[in-house]
């Protein structure tokens, strides 16, 4: 965290905001470690079909007679299951690698889309005020009071089950958090002198919104954003626990945990434990990056 007080390195070339950002980010070893772990996880997820010993989505490769094998056992098909198998005989290692994919798509996908939608609407509400503000904020009220599970059930009924539909459900559930947060900070910022100055210069609204107002609303947004990625992944797990998540034959980490948890009492810990570890590492690495990112991006910490 020494970066916050350190002066920017003297650059031989011209200093762009991006370069400064990169160098400030790189100064923190923990954050770089987080980034490294996250990159490895992302690579694992992207190249899952070439890395995983088994295709856990292909029912023909599974056999319930291999079900709940403890870690290290060799299954009927000759594969050594280093992390054991679940109740369907699915290799846990393969399941986790493929599950990472689904969880990342769901978590990051929904957080990014929800952030874009929510932040734009929040900014608009704060800047435009009046009717627009009221309309958007009542929409937020409506959204925030709508139980996640009911929304997910309805979307499930309309669209059917699937990874993409879970993303849509999460976006619908989460955009309001961003909108409300951004509006809150923007309301304060809007009164500041630099916005008034920009308005006096008759800059276009979109420029004022995105070049002046938005960067100053970023810090709380990033706090919420990193939390929401983690939350989206956990929420997807909860939806799976309630039987509303992704399809059972294409389990995410959350679904693997939820499914495996039922076997916890009987001592088949590995079905739930290893996906849990994977989920934890993923979320922690995202948050380590996010934490530091927030400090780097916060204009108010640069005095």
């Amino acid at each position, binding site marked *: *965290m020494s970066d916050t007080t350190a002066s920017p390195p003297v650059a031989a070339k011209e200093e762009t905001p991006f370069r400064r950002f990169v160098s400030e980010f790189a100064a923190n070893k923990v954050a770089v470690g987080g980034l490294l772990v996250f990159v490895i996880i992302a690579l694992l997820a992207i190249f899952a079909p070439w890395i995983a010993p088994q295709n856990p989505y292909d029912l023909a490769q599974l056999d319930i007679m291999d079900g709940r094998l403890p870690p290290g056992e060799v299954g009927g098909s000759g594969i050594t299951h280093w992390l054991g198998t679940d109740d369907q005989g699915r290799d846990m290692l393969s399941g986790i690698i493929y599950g990472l994919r689904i969880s990342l798509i769901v978590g990051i996908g929904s957080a990014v889309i929800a952030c874009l939608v929510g932040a734009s609407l929040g900014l608009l509400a704060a800047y435009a*005020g*009046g*009717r627009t*503000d*009221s309309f958007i*904020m*009542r929409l937020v*009220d*409506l959204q*925030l*009071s*709508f*139980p*996640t*599970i*009911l929304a997910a*059930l*309805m979307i*499930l*009924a*309309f669209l059917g089950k699937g990874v993409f539909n879970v993303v849509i459900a999460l976006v619908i559930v989460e955009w309001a*958090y961003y909108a*409300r*947060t951004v509006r*809150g900070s923007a*309301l*304060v910022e809007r*009164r500041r002198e630099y916005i008034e100055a920009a308005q006096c210069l008759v800059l276009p609204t979109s420029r004022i919104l995105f070049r002046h107002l938005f960067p100053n609303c970023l*810090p*709380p947004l990033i*706090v919420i954003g990193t*939390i929401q990625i*983690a*939350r989206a992944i*956990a929420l997807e*797990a*909860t939806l799976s*626990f*309630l039987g509303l998540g992704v399809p059972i034959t294409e389990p995410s980490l*959350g679904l693997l*945990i*939820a499914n495996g*948890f039922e076997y*916890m*009492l009987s001592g088949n810990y590995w079905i*739930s434990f290893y996906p*849990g570890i994977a*989920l*934890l590492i993923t*979320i*922690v690495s995202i*948050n*380590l990056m996010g*934490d530091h990112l*927030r*400090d780097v991006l*916060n204009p*108010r*910490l640069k005095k």
Partner: protein
Amino acid sequence: MTVYLLRRILQSLMVLLAMSVIVFVGVYAIGDPVEILISPDADQMERERAIAALGLDLPLWQQYLVFLQNALRGDLGRSFVFNELALQLILNRMPATLELAFGAMFLSVLIGLPLGLYAGLKPESIGSRVIMAGSILGFSLPTFWVGLMLIMVFAVQLGWLPSSGRGDTVEILGLQWSFLTANGWSHLAMPAFNLALFKISLVIRLTRSGVREAMLMDYVKFARAKGLSPTRVTFVHVFKNILIPVVTVVGLELGSTIAFSVVTETIFAWPGMGKLIIDSINVLDRPVIVAYLMVIVLMFITINLIVDILYSVLDPRVRLESKA
């Protein structure tokens, strides 16, 4: 101010109306309540009778008009499952959920604020790093998983706390409350903590970042320069400044805690509104779903209004808008 309030109330009514339409269409899209409620061996005649008895034989728009008519008289309908007034059912369940939600909020502020303050004031210390790592765990772990783990450890293994359910209740104002008995508290502890876990992390993070920002602000620097004691600086100047985001989030989270305590209530067999709504969704008990959402929306609107008013009180830079 009055104009502002009136406007907000009018807008809120629109929200309520929109919500009821969404629920009607949504429940209609999900499935047929009679298919779920009826005994499997009921014949076609019995099915038709049940459909008519629940008023589901009318076209959807007519069902909605009937609902609106009754709603204007304050009658939100009868539960398909319990044959009791939906609103009454919800109000009977409300104390249990309120207890849980307030318990969780209380815990999150009680634990989150001091830890966050510490982490913000001494960001480099080992203690802060442990706190921040812990807070990451707090919102990484799915609620249901933590809940079942708590039961495993504290009820099954150690036997310290009861595994589920609500404890002894005392009747106040015609409603049953359990927070006044020791037995009630022992039942409340685990579910409240389970529900609070996420919020504790949230409060820690918000407080920490707020403190860190505030410490760099000119007015804090001046206060220090003036020779004010660090305690006074922290608790008067810094504290006041970080309250805005914390108040916003705690306010917002109180609503969502009440609305989304579903998972915790299911795992701990806590007889609150969350349990009622998930049960009602599972059997498509539309009158209860509609009434529940009406109550929740009203609650949210109220909370948001209070948060907005608090904003203007806490931060004079924000003014309540009344212009069109």
